């Protein structure tokens, strides 16, 4: 081949491989971008007067006099709207039966949507569920509801050769000539004064309990549950992992038994996480009866098994990277091997071991499959420490799954889901950042 074409091929290899790196970085950006931007909306958003009312009535938070004044003003702004509803209700009674039959269900729909937007209509009994006692707390959700009031969705099947398409029909058309007709433009123009949106930084999203299965409030039970599970897993796994690493790196003579041990460790690392979950159910709960049913303890034990190989490998790596001179110096001073390990080797390897521990902490916090059958429930209150022995808990990863797939109003609580994902991802990223920083410092120290 000509030299030029050989060069061309060489360049193109460079191009392809650099493109792979770029694609990888791009994938990370595409993944994290929406999680960060939409997750931030759980914390920063335009909160309506309903949000402040919830804060006062459920969490006893905020200036009660100011909120009362605001409620007053908001109620006044809504008054003409409710007047129109009443007028139309009276008008409806006098209509001829055919038209009444046609309009009544539509009127009911409008009332239901208004209730969803602004909270209970005046004179109605308090609803049982919290989500029916308050209107929209977030301005962007209020906008969505407003659109649903202004337009009704209908499906157009007129063209048989194509799939049905969605058509938005203004609701106003149905009520032309009635007392309800002016309601729609009025609502559209005055919604701001009815809800008074204001930019809010809701940092208590992290520390509030959830109200009415995450319709309102924060994610504290999940955060606490994840904390317990991770802490428990670390408490169980660290002693076993570090001791095993010490044995493998310092005391084990090369032999069949030790290579069997190593094979077991890598096998354990390769077991799919869902199998760990099944094992936790079959062993910790159904056989050992650690708890009557799911509990934080059983979940922690399962997670501990999952991260054990990671800790062993990281700790062994760290122990092996300690210079031989350290060990030989300690031994030549007459220290027994055990004392050498405890006083010289472990302190020298500590930062490396810590890195491994931190990384596996992130892994334990984010794993879902092992805790599905052993620890996680969808709805729960924050646990006391001693309750972790026999009580299940909500946890961030499980509840992300649960809210995104099984919740009864998946679309209405997207902000909570994104907020949870952001919290979990930030947690894992911070842990990894800490590990990276520690590692950088260690490698600088080792280089001298």
């Amino acid at each position: 081949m000509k030299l030029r074409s050989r060069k061309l091929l060489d360049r193109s290899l460079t191009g392809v491989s650099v493109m792979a790196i770029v694609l990888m970085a791009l994938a990370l950006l595409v993944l994290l971008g929406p999680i960060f931007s939409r997750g931030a909306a759980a914390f920063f958003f335009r909160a309506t007067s309903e949000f402040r009312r919830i804060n006062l009535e459920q969490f006893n938070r905020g200036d009660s006099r100011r909120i009362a004044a605001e409620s007053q003003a908001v109620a006044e702004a809504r008054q003409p709207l409710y007047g129109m509803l009443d007028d139309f209700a009276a008008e409806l009674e006098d209509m001829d039966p055919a038209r009444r039959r046609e309009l009544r269900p539509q009127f009911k729909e409008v009332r239901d949507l208004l209730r969803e937007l602004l909270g209970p209509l005046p004179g109605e009994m308090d609803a049982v569920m919290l989500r029916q006692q308050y209107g929209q707390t977030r301005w962007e959700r209020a906008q969505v509801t407003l659109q649903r009031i202004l337009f009704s969705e209908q499906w157009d099947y007129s063209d048989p050769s194509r799939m049905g398409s969605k058509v938005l029909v203004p609701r106003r058309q149905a009520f032309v000539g009635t007392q309800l007709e002016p309601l729609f433009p009025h609502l559209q123009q005055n919604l701001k004064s009815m809800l008074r949106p204001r930019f809010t930084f809701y940092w208590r999203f992290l520390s509030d309990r959830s109200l009415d299965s995450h319709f309102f409030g924060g994610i504290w039970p999940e955060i606490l549950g994840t904390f317990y599970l991770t802490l428990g897993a670390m408490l169980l796994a660290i002693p076993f992992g570090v001791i095993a690493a010490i044995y493998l790196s310092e005391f084990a003579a090369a032999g069949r038994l030790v290579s069997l041990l190593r094979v077991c460790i890598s096998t354990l690392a390769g077991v799919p996480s869902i199998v760990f979950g099944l094992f936790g159910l079959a062993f910790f709960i159904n056989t050992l009866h650690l708890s009557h049913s799911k509990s934080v303890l059983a979940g922690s034990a399962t997670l501990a098994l999952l991260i054990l190989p990671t800790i062993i490998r990281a700790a062994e790596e760290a122990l092996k990277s300690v210079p031989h001179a350290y060990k030989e110096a300690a031994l030549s001073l007459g220290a027994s091997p055990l004392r050498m390990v405890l006083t010289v080797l472990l302190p020298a390897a500590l930062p490396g071991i810590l890195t491994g521990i931190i990384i596996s902490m992130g892994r334990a916090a984010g794993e879902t499959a092992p805790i599905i059958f052993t620890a996680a429930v969808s709805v729960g209150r924050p646990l006391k420490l001693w309750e972790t022995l026999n009580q299940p808990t909500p946890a961030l990863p499980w509840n992300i799954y649960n809210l995104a797939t099984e919740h009864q109003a998946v679309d209405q609580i997207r902000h909570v889901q994104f907020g949870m994902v952001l919290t979990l991802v930030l947690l894992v990223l911070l842990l990894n950042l800490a590990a990276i920083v520690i590692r950088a410092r260690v490698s600088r120290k080792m280089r001298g």
Partner: protein
Amino acid sequence: MKTNERNLVMSDAASRLRRLAAFFSKGFLFLVAAASLVAVLLIIVYIARDAIPFFKLRGLKELFASTAWFPSGNPPEFGALAIFIGSGLVTLGAILVAVPLGIAAAIALSDILPYRLRQAVKPVIEILAALPSVAYGFFALVIFAPLLQNHGGSLLSLAAWLILLPLGLLIAFAVSEIATRSIRADVAPAARWLLAATLAAVLVRGLVALSAILKNVTVSSGTNAFNVSIILGIMALPTIVSVAEDSLQAAGRELREGSYALGATRAESLFRVIIPAAGSGIIAAVILGVMRAIGETMVVWMASGNAAQVPQPWYNFLSPVRTLTATIAGDMGEADQVLGSERYHVLFALALCLLLISFFANLASEWILRRQARRLGGLK
């Protein structure tokens, strides 16, 4: 450690005591270290213990040969063939995404990028590896699936352009280069350019036709094997990149320098020398990446559509599928109530299959990596 020689510093009694302490502490350390052995044994025993009753009740044939999966039907049917095919399909897809990308990235990291850039790329890989699987699953379900459903056709054609155009141009140049080798030197450049231009034109024409076809593809549901394959591929990337890079590095400096000294370009020494030497490590990397894809639960559970059916035709990535892991995760919630029923045990049977697959794949990758380490060690 020699402790049996006569000790000059300590008295005999103290020395004996010390030896005894050393013996016991070593035994204790071994017992703790054996925890992972015990754990592996317990996992195998307890999964098998709950899986065997299923095979006793229903035999082997139904699970592996039938595609009728109606565990809650009356009578129930437990044909998991479609589920195995689903697992296989998404894993195949993940490999198609992750292996070329992963190996190319590993080459870049080990041989091409300068040191500083390499240090900057490492955290990207670490973060990709560290992100919780449920975050990937959430992304697949909430962001990627609607995107695929609403703009599936244009997305596919865009991807085809992005991937096939650079690769195709490269191949066109290489082909025209090789084809004009034996032509007289004075007309060769002209002929080469002419041929390359023709090939490129054909390529672009073909791509236009292909993207027209792809644009008309309607994706009926965004939660399908294609979606999951891409996400699983990204998740398997870090494993493949780091293991493959390690083994490329392990091939050593001497091999590279020897190859350069003989006048090979970087690409030539990579393909003729380094990759053959590191090949088994790369295979091990691929096996580990496959393991990650097969064993992943949350992404497939959330975004694969969970339909226990064989795609028609089998390579139809745009149809929803159901995998082993998702079946276990999804069905246990109901089966848990009826402890000891066939429904409960069949999930353990599936888990046993998963466990065996991962066990043997792990052994294989372990064996390959060890053999490579021995061989490369012998080379030095």
